[in-house]
């Protein structure tokens, strides 16, 4: 049976066209783009082409605003650390409670070790940012605001353009972790006040280990990785040329498939959601019903735990992920769902299905076929489940 891959927010399959574009850069065009000879020159030209392809995807005004990095995490770290260095008189960071660990862990570390004050803006039950709290946190003490474009778990989209304007008024730099948004949403950076943007290759059908940081022209930037003059001295180290070429090709393809992502893929997602909610009682979709990525469905199944569902789905050849405590390795359920105040009865049973252009109708059919049985099986095992339409069983365990 053909496996069903619905975990595209975790990572995507590298597009075969991307692989083809990359291959010559391992063998024929292996040169170092910094070299003066012909081996280097041809590679240098390919890097430039890739930079322009990425520039087009994110609507940057200049191609040199694109700095290639090793991925989303490096870009996030580079942006935030740079801002603190170029504005030493400002010692506060504004971020959201639902950011990726690449931002949240860094902020916690800065708070602890460097005495930086971090404002984590809360979200409501649909994962929407508390704009009042955001405005209140902005001040002349804030060096950088780092708010994600779209949430990796629920797909909720934040109004980053508007948030960037507000940050600008306060004189703070604005960075957005757009790892989940790039390639899924049309982005035109030149028309926004966004100063920096992080993106990752492997979320848009390019390989792992390549990403980029957009730094708007005129924004002061201090490199975290010291060494050679590569990337205009903003990211030292010999370029990952096959990766860069792959990311460029993936950017070009992403533009081509942007419509597909927002029409066909979105329809698949919607059909899955609707089908699951119709077939399975006590289930609901999390995230902002209006402003949401077209590919992400995060559904909470009440009174059961996510890991069991993932194991049973995996046995059926279906891959997706869960915000449950048990699968993440930490003992608490997803910080995103907890920030949204989703009750524990549901947060432990939240499953994320994330689509890409590689998915088709059959994939949705397969999930709709097996999921009701899986949920039913686990609910029969659950001491909390009392039946459809019934209040959960009174269950007062010793430690409750």
């Amino acid at each position, binding site marked *: 049976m053909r496996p069903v891959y619905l975990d595209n927010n975790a990572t995507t399959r590298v597009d075969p066209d991307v692989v083809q574009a990359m291959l010559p850069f391992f063998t024929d065009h292996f040169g170092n783009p910094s070299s003066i000879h012909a081996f280097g020159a041809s590679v240098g030209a390919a890097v430039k082409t890739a930079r322009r392809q990425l520039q087009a995807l994110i609507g940057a005004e200049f191609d040199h605003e694109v700095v290639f990095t090793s991925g989303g995490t490096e870009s996030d770290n580079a942006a935030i650390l740079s801002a603190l*260095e170029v504005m*030493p008189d400002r*010692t506060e960071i504004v971020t959201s409670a639902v950011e990726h*660990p690449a931002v949240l*862990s860094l902020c916690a570390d800065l708070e*602890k*070790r*460097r*005495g930086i004050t971090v404002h984590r803006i809360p979200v409501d039950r649909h994962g929407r940012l508390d704009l009042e709290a955001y405005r209140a946190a902005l001040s002349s003490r804030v060096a950088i605001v780092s708010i994600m474009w779209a949430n990796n778990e629920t797909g909720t989209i934040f109004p980053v353009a508007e948030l960037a304007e507000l940050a600008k008024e306060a004189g703070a730099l604005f960075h957005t972790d757009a790892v989940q948004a790039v390639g899924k949403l049309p982005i035109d950076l030149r028309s926004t006040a966004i100063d920096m943007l992080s993106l990752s290759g492997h979320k848009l059908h390019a390989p792992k280990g390549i990403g980029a940081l957009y730094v708007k022209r005129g924004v002061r930037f201090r490199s975290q990785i010291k060494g050679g003059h590569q990337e205009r001295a903003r990211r030292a180290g010999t370029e990952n040329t096959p990766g860069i070429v792959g990311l460029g090709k993936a950017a070009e393809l992403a533009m081509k498939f942007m419509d597909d992502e927002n029409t066909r893929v979105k329809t698949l997602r919607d059909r899955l959601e609707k089908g699951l909610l119709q077939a399975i009682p006590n289930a609901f979709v999390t995230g902002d019903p209006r402003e949401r990525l077209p590919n992400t469905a995060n559904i909470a199944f009440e*009174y*059961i*735990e*996510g*890991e*069991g569902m993932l*194991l*049973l789905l*995996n*046995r059926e050849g279906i891959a997706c992920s869960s915000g*449950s*405590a*048990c*699968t993440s*390795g*930490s*003992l*608490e*359920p997803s910080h995103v769902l907890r920030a949204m105040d989703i009750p*524990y*009865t549901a947060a*432990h049973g939240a499953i994320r299905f994330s689509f890409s252009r590689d998915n088709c109708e059959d994939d949705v059919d397969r999930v709709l076929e097996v999921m009701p049985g899986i949920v039913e099986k686990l609910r*029969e*095992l*659950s*001491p*909390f489940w009392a039946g459809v339409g019934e209040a959960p069983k009174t*269950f*007062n*365990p*010793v*430690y*409750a």
Partner: protein
Amino acid sequence: MWDYSDKVKEYFFNPKNAGVLEAANAVGEVGAISCGDALKLMMSIDPDTDTITAAKFQTFGCGSAIASSSALTELITGKTLEDALRITNQDIADFLGGLPPEKMHCSVMGYEALQAAIANYRGEEWADDHEEGALVCKCFGVDEGMIERAVRVNKLTTVEQVTNYTKAGGGCLTCFETIEEVLARVNATMVGESLIAAEEAYKAGSTDKYALKIKTRAKTAVPEPAVVSGQMDRTLPPAAVQSPRPEAPAGRQMTTLKRIRLIETAIDGMRSTLRADGGDCELIDVDGDHVYVKLSGACTGCQLASVTINGMRQKLVEATGLALRVLPVS
């Protein structure tokens, strides 16, 4: 994905004795939905022989929680209460061919449910017997008695192991010091009883709480091989988090004088580097976390002065363990 043994998978995919036991005359309920684990154990006990004739379970939890519950019902069916009470969480884990260390608490939950069910049958209040100590971990509702027992039965000697077995400290970590105290106290008693060697016993302050916190948040799923086989091999080299804290002094307890001396020593250490480049610096004042320095010689007017200041701050932070800011004055 977790590295589950084949037996864990078998007992998860096809759990034995799942569901409601109508004829139950002993019921034990443990865990809580907030923790992501809850188990209801139902047993039918023959009052004449005190033998468990049937057992069923209902579990809310991950694969290993369901497998542990099912394993428990298999282990106890046919046993007398006396024999059943001798079953430990380790027996449940062994029956399943071992559990990943992070999942050991599932077997502890099985043990707890059995104790609770037998107490229920005997008309005893098991909770009272259990809650002999104060609540330690508020996130997961773990009290002192439970930690003590887990430490004793499984010969635990690190805070990390306590978290893996009981979940205590897996959340906000505010209970960290209390776990340390309990662990050190119980270990000391165990040394007295020759259950563990003196050098294995936990020493309070030997774990970096911050490193532990990072670790519990982003834990690798790689189990220590010795644990999978069911026995904690304490001869393994201690993990990074257990290594003694570096010599960095704790900032909060330091007196102002000590802080300033520390800063002074650190700056003196840097001067030789600056002098090599024809520059120099001087400590002018320390006000709270602000360190005022005066750059002189070649440093004056150097375009890289801000880089130097930044480097100084990093070195100072490293040397003193304090969150300091370095500000140049002319």
